[in-house]
């Protein structure tokens, strides 16, 4: 029984929240009504806690491509990329992503989580390499470090000087050094000073990996992410991303100008030992990529919606984690207030994400609104009204006057 003892405290909290109908971690989308609407607890709800940034979940061209692949190639690959799970679609999509990013090589993995796990663990030899990680990096980057078995050193969030110090005092015994950051961080919606990180990493002979999971398709002149916005996409060493946000499918990738990135195909256990994305998944990701490339208006609409929401929430005096971005987070001092405010919004017909420490960067809890280009004027109006009512009901969510 001692196997289960450690869960008791968390289980008690989890169950009590469920009984009160207040558990953000057990939400079921009963009927999906469209890219920004679903039925939750029997009620039609505006979805603002999904990462459907470019509204591609119901893109007709992506659905048609997925159906065609389903008919032509079947429901699944029944194997890993390394064995029997590489179809021509996987190779074609790798080429399309590499071409879009202007990078020489791309390796497709089964999810974004798996891509980071696979990149870090596949590149690093724990007997001679070290990984340096931004303090606010996503769990999959930390898990990649754990899987690699290498020494892992954390530096202060978005602080190139903190990285500089840590690289400077590294034991000379380390042969390879990998620095991991993200483009846009998903909790606060803040972005990394990638150019400065490139300079610092390369000055110390380290390679830089940038996870653009949340910023791919969303940042930069042509949607190539924060690396493009910072003008350094050709300088970074590894670009990782996901199909489950802007491309509205599931899967992930590692892209690079280093030809050695191809070695991941045999060095990376998360590439070799899990099934590859299904043909329909690959086909919809490919069609969504073609669509977002051809339709810059999607990104423009996303930012228009993000700017309008950010301005409205600022107007209400809500305490926001960062400037306008596709993720807009309201900070609340305690998890109890965050639970209550999250429920309040759901009762108003609005679904957002809730995050509490240690899953958040600071000591505060937060309500995370993820904007979509598919949010209609009516969706935005409802979001603005719901947040206005919340600002009234929860003074602790507002900036002190």
């Amino acid at each position: 029984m001692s196997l289960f003892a450690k869960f008791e405290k968390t289980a008690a909290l989890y169950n009590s929240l469920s009984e009160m109908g207040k558990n953000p971690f057990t939400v079921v989308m009963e009927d999906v009504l469209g890219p920004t609407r679903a039925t939750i607890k029997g009620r039609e709800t505006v979805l603002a806690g999904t990462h459907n940034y470019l509204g591609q979940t119901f893109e007709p061209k992506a659905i048609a491509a997925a159906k065609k692949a389903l008919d032509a190639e079947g429901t699944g690959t029944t194997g890993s990329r390394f064995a029997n799970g590489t179809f021509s679609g996987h190779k074609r999509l790798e080429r399309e992503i590499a071409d879009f990013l202007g990078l020489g090589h791309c390796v497709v993995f089964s999810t974004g989580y798996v891509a980071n796990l696979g990149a870090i663990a596949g590149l690093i030899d724990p007997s001679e390499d070290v990984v340096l990680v931004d303090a606010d990096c996503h769990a999959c980057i930390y898990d990649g470090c754990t899987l690699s078995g290498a020494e892992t050193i954390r530096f202060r969030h978005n602080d190139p000087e903190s990285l500089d110090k840590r690289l400077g005092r590294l034991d000379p015994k380390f042969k390879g050094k990998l620095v991991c950051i993200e483009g846009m961080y998903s909790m606060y919606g803040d972005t990394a000073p990638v150019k400065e990180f490139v300079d610092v990493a390369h000055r110390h002979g380290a390679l830089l990996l940038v996870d653009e999971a949340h910023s791919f398709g969303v940042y930069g002149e042509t949607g190539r992410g924060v690396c493009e916005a910072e003008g350094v996409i050709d300088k970074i060493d590894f670009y990782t991303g996901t199909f489950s946000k802007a491309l509205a499918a599931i899967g992930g990738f590692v892209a690079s100008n280093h030809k050695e990135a191809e070695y991941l195909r045999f060095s990376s256990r998360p590439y070799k030992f899990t099934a590859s994305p299904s043909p329909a998944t690959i086909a919809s990701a490919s069609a969504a990529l073609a669509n977002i490339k051809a339709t810059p208006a999607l990104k423009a609409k996303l930012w228009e919606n993000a700017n309008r929401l950010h301005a409205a929430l600022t107007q209400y005096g809500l305490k926001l984690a960062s400037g306008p971005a596709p993720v807009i987070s309201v900070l609340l001092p305690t998890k109890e207030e965050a639970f209550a405010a999250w429920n309040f919004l759901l009762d108003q017909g609005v679904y957002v994400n809730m995050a509490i420490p240690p899953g958040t960067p600071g000591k505060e809890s937060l309500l995370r609104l993820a904007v979509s280009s598919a949010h209609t004027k009516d969706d935005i109006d409802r979001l603005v009204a719901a947040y206005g009512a919340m600002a009234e009901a929860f003074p602790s969510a507002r900036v002190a006057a």
Partner: protein
Amino acid sequence: MNMQQSGIQADDDLVFRRICALLDPLNKKGVKLTRDVDLVADLEVDSVSVLDIVMDIEDHYDISIPVNTISETMTIGQLVDAIHAIKGQQG
């Protein structure tokens, strides 16, 4: 604030005292800070807060403490010992 009020046990070890000072604001239950106090179980400090404290210590002593060392470090005393070991190597 004197040492008695803040619940910090007198100890000559500077590393111990520094860690106690960093933990003090997080010590909401007013647990008496000794080497045997478990950061997570006794102080209920979450894992990320422990890593944030470690970063303060790194910058104070100009050393690097791998995350791997910390995940195994549970009590204040074990954290102090780990820092001494790394200071010995890097300092």
